[in-house]
Structure formats: C-alpha cells, structure tokens
C-alpha cells in the first residue's frame, strides 16, 4: 500500500484533457465564518448580516458573501486528489477571477484542464499547469485560475512499478 495514488504523477497528465472531479462541497455559513476569521479577514460583508441588511443594493440583496479565498481553497481541495496528491509544491497561480459570488448553502464542484507540462529544475518532478474552475451545479463558474504545480515523476518515485 502506498500513501498516494499511482494515477496522478507527472506522466499521468495529458495536455488538453479536462478532469471532472467527482466530489462537490456545500459551503456552509460555518465554513465562511470560521475561515474568514481564522485568517484575520476583517471585511464585514462576509460576516455581518446587519450591515448587509442595511444596504442590500450594495451587498448582494442583503446576503453575506462567502470570502473568495475560502472558495478558492475549497475548489483546490476538491481538485486535489486528482491533481496534487503527488505534488511537491504549489508553485504559481495566475489569471485568477472570482466570476460569481458564492453564498451560504451553495454547492461547488471543480474541474481541471491540463494546459501545459514542462521540466522543472529538479530531475524527480515536473511542472503541470492546470486551468482550475469551481462551478455550481447549474454550471455557473464561481472561480477560475491557472494553477502551476510541481508534481513527482513516476520514473523517479515508482521505479520498477
């Protein structure tokens, strides 16, 4: 038994292929409040219902919006077993956009499209760039970002496999 799966090494990713990650995650009020506070994000639109009630035209019809950094972290989490279980590090993220707001009770899914593969400065791992998207069940994309990950090479870590 190995700690990580054998289907998510550098060699396993095919440029142009989209991986539809199975699991979804309903983002709860608790998720939003706990993580917003834990990382010391003090923007009240994430956690003060009274403030958004008083100015619903500015604040999403009087709803607290889930902090985007949490949405991104959950989206990466949903994609992680298929894309970065064998990663050595997250390296870069670029062209990130929160394209639609997420509210308490929304469910998000994730998919990753392999954009690019290249050698890294170490022999045992290569760089894979994914376009990561988080979306709701109706297809509305809530976050998209290009994510470059340093991933172990099967040729180095699974010798003789």
């Amino acid at each position, binding site marked *: 038994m190995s700690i990580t799966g054998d289907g998510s090494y550098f060699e396993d990713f095919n440029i142009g292929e989209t991986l539809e990650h199975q699991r979804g995650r309903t983002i709860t009020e608790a998720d939003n409040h706990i993580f917003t506070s834990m*990382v010391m994000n003090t*923007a009240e639109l994430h956690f003060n219902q009274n403030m958004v009630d008083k100015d619903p035209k500015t604040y999403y019809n009087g709803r607290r919006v889930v902090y985007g950094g949490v949405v991104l972290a959950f989206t990466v989490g949903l994609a992680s077993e298929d894309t970065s279980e064998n990663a050595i590090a997250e390296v870069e993220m670029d062209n990130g956009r929160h394209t639609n707001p997420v509210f308490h009770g929304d469910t998000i899914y994730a998919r990753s499209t392999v954009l690019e593969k290249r050698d890294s400065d170490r022999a045992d791992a290569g760089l894979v760039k994914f376009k990561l998207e988080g979306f709701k069940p109706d297809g509305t994309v809530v976050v998209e970002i290009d994510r470059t990950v340093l991933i172990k090479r099967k040729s180095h870590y699974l010798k003789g496999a």
Partner: protein
Amino acid sequence: MPSRKIERGHYFEDFEVGHLYKHHWGRTITEGDNSFFTSVTMNANPIYFNREYAQSLGYKGVVVNHLLVMNVVFGLSVEDLSERAIAHLGYEGMKYLATVYPGDTLTSESLVVSKRDSSRPDRGIVKFRTTGYNQRGEKVLEYERPVLIRKRNVKSE
C-alpha cells in the same frame, strides 16, 4: 464622557498610487491551523498532514498548506486594503516563493499599483501588489489583486 465611533478600513478615495502599506499584526501559523484548514478544505496532499511522508520528500516536517499561506497573507491585508470592498475580483502573478512550516510567523505588505473608476459612480477598482514574508524576512508569497471598493459617501443607485 461622550462616546466616539472608531472606523476601520479605507475607501476608494483614500488610496494613493505608490503608497506602501505595512500591514499590522502578523500571524504565527500553528500546527492546529494547518491541520484544521487542510482537513476541512479536503486537501489530499499528504505533505500538509503526514510528517513522515513530508520528510521522505526532503521537507523538515509537515508543510503549511499553500492556500492557508495565501489566505493569511491576504487576510492580514484586508483591514488596510479591502475592508470597504464590494468584491475581491481575482489574483494575478501569484508566486509561492518559500516553504512555510508550522511555527513560522507571516507578515504582509502591499503596494498600491493603480486605481480607476468603475462603470458605477459609487465604486472604483484598485489594484494592489501584496508580498508575504516569514520571520526571517524572506519572501514567501507575492501576488497582485484588483479589488472593487466603495467610494466615500456615494449612495448605491
């Protein structure tokens, strides 16, 4: 004694291009923070939660989840940059520059890169370049982010 209201956060008009904000507080990332964040966001990379495995890859122990590093560096910047924001629009050129371990203390600073009006009169877009450091002053993260921010005393249509 009369009472006084202490307001926090900045409006669109408050930002000057070229100004550098050195954000206060700083934050030591604990093992508990990292385990909790990684588990609840269901991140499957064992470098974040299996010490023996992380060490087998050459790390000195469990690594702090990159998304937690990003969120803490970001979170520390909010009071100065985006407490009055209507929306945090995205991320550009984000680079993870150094491994962060539990026990490391992160600080954050941000440069005002640009600002422009938006299509609605009550708000504008400001772009910031934020850099996160560890306790040795080494850069651990940098990125730019555009933010949609309220203007002072302009009512929403």
